[in-house]
């Protein structure tokens, strides 16, 4: 029997993978992908609780998050493209223009 606990454990695993990816990888595209992982971990969480509590609001939120994630990916990729045209790199450590 798969309970809410299993879903939550999966969600924690996915989220942790996303966090590690964001903190450790230097490629900005991979960082974006890691953020998607974290968003999807949250989606699992929402759907799991929706099922557990028998409340459909959680599923609606999950759909909303997917939409937001798509928009975010589009904007993020746009920024990356513009950055790349300037700097010819996608290394996150080069993005330090606002430093002192």
């Amino acid at each position, binding site marked *: 029997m798969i309970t809410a606990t299993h879903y939550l454990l999966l969600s924690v695993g996915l989220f942790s993978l996303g966090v590690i990816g964001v*903190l*450790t990888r230097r490629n900005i595209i991979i960082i974006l992908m890691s953020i998607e992982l974290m968003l999807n971990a949250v989606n699992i969480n929402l759907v799991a609780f929706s099922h557990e509590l028998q409340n459909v609001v959680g599923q609606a939120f999950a759909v909303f998050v997917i939409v937001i994630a798509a928009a975010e990916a589009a904007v993020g990729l746009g920024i990356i493209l513009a950055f790349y045209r300037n700097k010819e790199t996608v290394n996150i450590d080069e*993005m330090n223009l606002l*430093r002192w």
Partner: protein
Amino acid sequence: MDLIWLIPLLPGLGALVNGLVGVRAFGKRTAGLVANAAMAAALALALYAFWQLLSLPADAREHTVRLAAWIPPIPLALGNGAIGGFTVPWGFRLDPLSGLMILVVTLVGFLIHVYSTGYMHGETRGAYARFFAYLNLFAFFMLVLVLGDNFLVMFVGWEGVGLCSYLLIGYYYEKQSASDAGKKAFIVNRIGDWGFIVGIFMVYGTFGTLDFRAVADAAGPMGVEAAGFGTLSIITLLLFIGATGKSAQIPLYVWLPDAMEGPTPVSALIHAATMVTAGVYMVGRNAVLFSHAPMTMEVVAVVGVATAFMAATIGLAQHDIKRVLAYSTVSQLGFMFIAMGVGAFAAGAFHLMTHAFFKALLFLCSGSVIHAMAGEQDMRRMGGLKPHLPITYATMLVGTLAIAGIPPLSGFFSKDEILYRAFLDHKVIWGVAVATALMTAFYMYRLMSLTFFGAYRGPAWEAHGGRADHGHAASGGGHGHGGGGWRGPHESPRSMTVPLQLLAVGAVLAGFVGVPAALGGGNAIEHFLEPSFVARTAAPPGATAPATHEARGLGEAAHAAESKGGEGTGHAAHLSRSAELGLMALSVLAGIVGIAAAYRIFVRAPEIAETLARRWSGAHRVLSNKYYVDELYGATVVAGTMGAARGLWAFDRSVVDGAVNGSGWLTVSSAWVSHALDKYIVDGLVNLVGAVLEAGSFVVRRVQTGLVQNYALVMLFGVFAFVSVYLFVR
């Protein structure tokens, strides 16, 4: 007579035209014409006014014209506590004394103007017009002086003639000595003017008016200050100080001899005939005041006789022809003051008039001689000029005899009248005056002898003829001839000789208006002038003239009688007719002896003069150095003034400037302090804040690494921390 204000105004107008337009635009002919026309018109008006004056009855010969208010009424507290309205009109008054004066000034002035057209011919066009502008201006001020009906209008003229005198002495202003002499004259006159001004203040304080007639009428009933030294004595003494300045009396006479630096017509007009007599005129104008102050009268007489004597002795040993005449003028002015001092105001005014004629004549003759000698003024370089200058010689001889007092020339009558009155008043004054008269005759004939007789001692000239015309400037002093135009001594042009001849006629005839009673005359001028010298309220009009002939005692008795009558100009006691004739003979004798001695010494045996000068070399040196008075004044007054000025300068430099510089230094140093405060404390605080912030930010900015993942990590830890707190603390 209502037009008497035009008499001064016409020459003033001439001066204006010549001074403003003529100096730039007029030729010599036009400039001379304007000036002479102005003087001629003034002369004609003066004659007309005088004739009208004569046609009035004797006690009504006074006419006042008030043109306008000069100083509008100002309420002032008087010395006696009352409030007086101080008001001064532009008033002119014609009375016998001013009538006589305007006649003298316009007549002599006109003749000298004519003479000047010839004498100044060598000047450049502008300088020529300038000369005539000054000369006309002088006539204007002189006429204002004598016609003014109050002290202030007189003072305007008084200062104006002083100014013109300064301008004309310094006419050759490129010459150091001339401009110095001008300044000297002006400054010495200022000293006298001080006395005059203070005197005017006191007159106003005492009488509450400045009108001559009102002052005289107010002073008439006042007591004679026989014993003490009262207000009237102080006033008259102060006025007399003014007179000594203007009329060159001891101690202020030193400017007049130096004034001979001016052109000769100026010397004749201003420094012999008219301006220098202003002091005498002023004393005569205030005769009532003076006759109430016997102490002052004595001072006046003593100063007069001392000046007359001293100047005459100096005149004995001078070599400059004009200087001899200058000292002679000082001496004759002394005579006039003797007359004033012994109360013979009419005799003084009479001598003033005759002197104006013969002294102007003598000066113009000397100018003619100087003209002939091309600017030479030293008599040692003249001599034997008689055949060259026949007209000048003849006229100058007339002048010399007149000043020496040889009857029947004018000087005899006036001088004898003074001597006679001096004899009545004080024998010592009379004695010194007679000695002076003798010396006068002597030095004047010495001048004649050295100039016209004997051998020619001047420079040689080119013998071959040509026109002895005046292509040269005969200006007195250094202007002289430029080069070889001089063809030897020659007679002056007609414009110069005609005035000489006319003045000579005047010098002969002027005395006949004052033939004394002892010679069967009526002494007309004395009766004519009498109303000007008395207070109107003193006696009923008409009785005045006879009353003055009442017997009076000598000395104290005369003073007592004067105080009783309240009038100062009455005759003192008469001597017997024979005694009077004897005195007359004595004074004539003095003149003849003087002339004879001079003739003997300088014409017959010139070596005697040398011997005398050698034997009395000490005295001779003192005389020719003018008693070292100039040196004395230089060492005392001038050096004292300079020393005081230097002291004040030092005070100014160290104390006044020191204070200014000290306050400046104080400002600078306080500014330095406040600058330091601003820089190190105020700015320091501001900079400290900045520095602290900078140092702090140096540490803190390390946080901003620019590494996005660092930020994300910190964020994560933060979330952990907050969640942990949330979980555990709850």
